[in-house]
């Protein structure tokens, strides 16, 4: 009704504004990328995209974890330390299995599966506290953050967890496709060519992993009954309850999913850096929440999409890589992400159609 009124008075302005409301994020992302193409030497290169996706894998996965929780109107402070815990558990388990004589590929698969199973536990506890005991998500997940930190310290023995088989490193830093012009191509492993031959490395493995998971999450949130229920729980919990939606079970699932995704991010970290670390994800709380909010989700729940959250992640990843390539210390990144986060929320409030 209100939108119609505005349109009657000043149709072009309203149309421009509502177009902006839909697209400002993508325009911002384009401008940001363009800026770094000129400002940072070497940034204007298709390889930059691969690099920023490679380094951004954990942020992408953590942001997805946070997205589901934020859509229900909650928050998960524990994702960073669940990541750290999973990086340690994963490293130790896979290392132990490989050390016990299990073939590396099987050790990797089995260890990863076990790590994910263990990694969901903190989420189940979070979900139980939030859904069944009505503990505010902030408190429940902060408690869990501490517990994960404690467990990490208990099992790590030293600063880094080590002992992954060489295959893990090959997979973690490897690419899906290698192409040596004139000499052929190969999947997953570098082709055997003479030293000095140019080999194109196409799409890092961990990025493939993240992309597949994110595609599945997009499907789950936008196309399935589960996703619809997640939106309903965040939009109006009472309505969801009275419509017969099992609100508590859904919340439990969302927090478990969050921890599962954080654990997956921890495994990606372990494969990338061939080690595990308790505070591997300590600094990513801001990034992961910021990506979701920049993507237009509401802190109060009920809104947010996978696509726009990916765009939010890209805003941060481009910034990080651009600043690095420009030689500015990464300290600037924290300041800029903070400013963009607040700016994005202000813009979302100011633009039409987002009254929240």
């Amino acid at each position, binding site marked *: 009704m209100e939108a119609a009124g505005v349109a009657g008075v000043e149709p072009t302005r309203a149309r421009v504004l509502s177009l902006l409301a839909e697209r400002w994020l993508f325009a911002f992302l384009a401008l940001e990328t363009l800026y770094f193409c000129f400002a940072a030497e070497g940034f204007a290169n298709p390889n930059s995209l691969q690099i920023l996706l490679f380094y951004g894998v954990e942020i992408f996965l953590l942001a997805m974890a946070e997205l589901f929780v934020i859509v229900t109107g909650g928050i998960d402070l524990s994702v960073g330390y669940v990541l750290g815990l999973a990086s340690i558990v994963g490293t130790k388990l896979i290392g132990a299995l490989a050390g016990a004589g299990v073939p590396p590929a099987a050790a990797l698969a089995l260890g990863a599966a076990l790590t994910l199973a263990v990694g969901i536990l903190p989420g189940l506890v979070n979900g139980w506290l939030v859904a069944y005991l009505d503990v505010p998500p902030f*408190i429940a997940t902060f*408690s869990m953050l501490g517990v994960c930190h404690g*467990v990490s310290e208990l099992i790590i023995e030293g600063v880094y967890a080590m002992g992954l088989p060489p295959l893990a490193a090959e997979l973690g830093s490897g690419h899906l496709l290698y192409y040596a012009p004139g000499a052929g191509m190969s999947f997953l492993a570098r082709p055997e060519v003479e030293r000095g031959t140019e080999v194109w490395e196409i799409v890092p493995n961990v990025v493939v992993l993240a992309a597949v998971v994110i595609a599945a999450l997009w499907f789950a949130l936008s196309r399935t009954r589960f996703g619809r229920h997640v939106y309903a729980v965040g939009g109006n919990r009472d309505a969801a309850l009275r419509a017969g939606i099992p609100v508590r079970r859904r919340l439990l699932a969302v927090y478990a999913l969050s921890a599962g995704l954080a654990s997956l991010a921890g495994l990606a970290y372990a494969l990338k850096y061939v080690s595990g670390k308790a505070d591997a994800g*300590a600094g990513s709380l801001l990034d992961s929440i910021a990506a979701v909010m920049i993507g237009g989700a509401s802190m*109060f729940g009920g809104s947010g999409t996978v696509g726009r959250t990916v765009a939010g992640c890209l805003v941060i990843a481009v910034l990080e890589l651009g600043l690095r390539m420009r030689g500015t210390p990464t*300290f*600037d990144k924290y*300041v800029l992400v903070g*400013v963009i986060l607040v700016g994005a929320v202000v813009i979302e409030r100011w633009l039409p159609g987002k009254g929240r």
Partner: protein
Amino acid sequence: MNEGATTAAELAPGSRGGGFLESRAGRALARNWSAWFLLLLLVTFSFTGRNFLSIGNFQHVVHLQTLPLLLAAAETLVIVTGGIDLSIGFVAGLASVTAAKLMQLLAAAGLPAGAVIALGAAGALVLSLLPGLVNGLVITRFRVPPFIATLGMWGIANGLALKLSEGFPVAGLPGALPRLGNGYVVYLLPGEFLSFLGPPAGFPEGRIREVWRLVPFSLVFVAAVLAALAFVLRRGRFGRHTYAIGGSVDAALRAGIDVRRHLVWIYVLASGLAGLAGVFNVFQTGIGNYTTFSAMYELFAVAAVVIGGASLSGGKGRVLGSAVGVLVLAFLQNGLAISGVQPFYRYIAVGVLLVIAVVIDKLFPDLR
């Protein structure tokens, strides 16, 4: 409220039928459970930990909690209004680094040590009000949720502190700083001397460990700040308005309280207290320290406030309760360490305590 009675009953499922929970004693116990718990901790650890029960250890613990105590007080103010401030930890770090940098500059300009310290500290304190001002304006003028606004400032203050310090603690400050920050009011060596504010002139540095040093400056400082805040919050009009806003913004608005302005002041005050904590930290350590990610000062401050009896939904909370919350967390760590327990159990204990605090808050929604 239509059928308000049933709604209240629903909110407090445990209040079925009266009984102990509704009795006077039950309520008193619930109101001060964290203080009783602290006492229980102290008694338990006195048995389990060698040297736990000593004035030296207690003074040491409180001395190390200066920064958390001030941050918890800051967080109390914000949480009582129903908001949250995630930036205070990094604002403290920024203030610490700023103070140290200012002192370096002033010292390089050739000022005497006293002026360097005073001006550096004062300058950093004034600057530490700015993050709060920005938080307050963003929250009230642009209606950005406090969580987001202060999370943004979390990044900004952290980035600025790292940039200023270039990622290293800022050293090379006047040597008088740690003496001021780590001094005691009373120095006593039984049979030999009793002196105030410092050992008698000429006392050999090597024998300082034999001297009974009582009442650290940090304790006096923190006690004074907390007492003033507690007074303002419980007895002053400012405090009354703070609780009113936390109870219901609508009611506060209709009562003619300038809610926006008040909230801006709250965030400025919180930021200033964080600044005070950061600057005092320079006095304690003699260097400018940025805050690390894993310190999680802001989250522990929230935890202390919640254990101290506040509710994250606002309208409830006490400065001294939060101080008890900080001490519970601190003695838990200290006592478990002295008793030789794995630090891992401390994290579990903190989690359990927080959940207890929330459950008590739900059972007694009307306790103040």
